[in-house]
């Protein structure tokens, strides 16, 4: 650095600490709320220190559900979220790796056309064409199925572009060498390309897992049965009940549970996450 001023460092620490406080406070409050009983939370005088209802609240949220029998327990929602997030991440990786392989390592008529057909999907997120997509999924009898939750969300070009970009950087000598060794397209893909792509696959997986886990509008529309709900839409339904007081302490416990998996992914796989984020946005 050009100059070193202790005061500037102190200011920097102060600002960053304030920033972390702002970033963490809403979650801290939710965590606290999830450890108190309903009356304490609803009374509007909730203390800023943890209560003693934590086990009770989380147990009820995960296994029992709300006071009324109509409320599904969160355990099933967590399973649904995991299935759809994994499905979206793995499905996208699968289809986009194959198509990028075709576009980069083969020459065939309509190659450019195929690439553009896929590329255009970048421009229109699912929110814009939500009802027609809903109708297609309904016609295919995919409402309330995992296929319906997963397939429409993997129809996008981000993965294909990412793998295409990565395959372009792989030295051609590798392919020449494999061909001299007598390897066909399958052997080359399996023995050379796949091992080289592990980091890229992992980075894309991290981003897509978070994307899939956090989906809201789409699962909200196509799931009608409570047993197919994901946790993210489950929380909101807990709060907007018409016939009873919302059980905020359970909703906050659910919110904490809904945050945990994707936040853990970001914190523990930070390197892959940053890489995936930067590369998918390029």
């Amino acid at each position, binding site marked *: 650095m050009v100059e070193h001023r202790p005061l500037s460092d102190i200011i920097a*620490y102060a600002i960053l600490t304030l920033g972390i406080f702002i970033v963490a406070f809403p979650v801290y409050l939710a965590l606290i709320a999830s450890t108190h009983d309903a009356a304490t939370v609803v009374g509007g005088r909730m203390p800023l220190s943890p209560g003693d209802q934590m086990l009770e609240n989380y147990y009820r949220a995960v296994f029992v559900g709300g006071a009324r029998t109509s409320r599904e327990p969160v355990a099933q929602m967590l399973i649904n979220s995991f299935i759809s997030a994994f499905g979206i991440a793995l499905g996208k990786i699968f289809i986009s790796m194959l198509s990028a392989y075709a576009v980069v390592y083969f020459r*065939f008529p309509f190659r450019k056309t195929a690439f553009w057909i896929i590329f255009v999907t970048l421009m229109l997120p699912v929110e814009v064409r939500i009802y027609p997509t809903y109708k297609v999924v309904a016609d295919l009898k995919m409402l309330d199925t995992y296929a319906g939750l997963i397939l429409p969300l993997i129809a996008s070009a981000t993965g294909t572009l990412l793998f295409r970009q990565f395959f372009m950087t792989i030295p051609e000598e590798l392919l020449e060498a494999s061909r001299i060794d007598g390897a066909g397209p399958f052997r080359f893909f399996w023995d050379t390309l796949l091992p080289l792509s592990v980091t890229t696959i992992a980075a894309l997986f991290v981003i897509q897992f978070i994307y899939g886990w956090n989906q809201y509008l789409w699962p909200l529309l196509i799931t009608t049965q409570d047993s197919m709900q994901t946790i993210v839409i489950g929380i*909101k339904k807990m709060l907007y009940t018409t016939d009873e007081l919302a059980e905020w302490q359970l909703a906050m416990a659910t919110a904490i549970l*809904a945050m945990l998996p994707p936040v853990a992914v970001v914190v523990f796989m930070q390197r892959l996450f940053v890489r995936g984020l930067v590369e998918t946005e390029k």
Partner: protein
Amino acid sequence: MEKSVVFSNKLLPYLLLIPQLIITFVFFYWPASQAVWQSFLREDAFGLTSEFVGLENYTSLFAQPEYYASMLVTVVFSSLVAALSLSIALLFATQADKNLKAAGAYKTLMIWPYAVAPAVAGVLWIFMFHPSLGTLARPLRWMNFDWNPLLNGNHAMALVVMAAVWKQISYNFLFFLAGLQSIPKSVLEAGAIDGAGPMRRFWTITFPLLSPTTFFLLVVNVVYVFFDTFGIIDAVTGGGPAGATTTMVYKVFADGRLGGDLGGSAAQSVVLMVIVIALTAIQFKYVERKVQY
């Protein structure tokens, strides 16, 4: 750049492309073209028959005061969220770029909200600022401030803006920090030798060199506000009160689902498609070549 060595199989590349092409056609092109087609139709009240009405859905859409209101809400919402989240993130990023000892830890502690679902973020913020039970609504009431985001449109807007900014800071912070770290130190040293202080160096050297990142983030943030904030709005306000937080995307959803006006909803979708395509075109034309990591 194209590969000069390739495989010569004739059929295999098509087989490799088939899964993605099928999914793209079934779940992308088919519904997108349906949206365009539906925008020229009108369904009867029971959804049994539909007739071709030409541009009527569009003319009635642009005759609705609510539609202009939702445009205004979208513009206000996007500019507030983009301006606030970009400037706050830039402030944090410049501080984290000062070679601090704990920079790595600060980075980790700053970026995790990216992983919080927008709808969950919305729930956290409405809990904090809920008029009757919110922990932060209490001090507002002590100050005799009649805070009620459930009834007052401006308060509702303030709340969704805060939640949206809170979630977007992490993303902007990450890219700003990367942008700052890629600025050569020698340029800043040259500035210091010429006698420029830290503030002067920031505004005359760092900020201009950062502009590609800023511009890239601006476009990304606008796209974020358009689409990803749906969950926040639905969880916090449900578009209310009285449409004060109904953005254009939220209106597509609300009109199609609650009102059942599929033709009008489709026309709105088409308008949105045009806007998004324009935004994406801007992104590719100006951003692609300039941003460097």
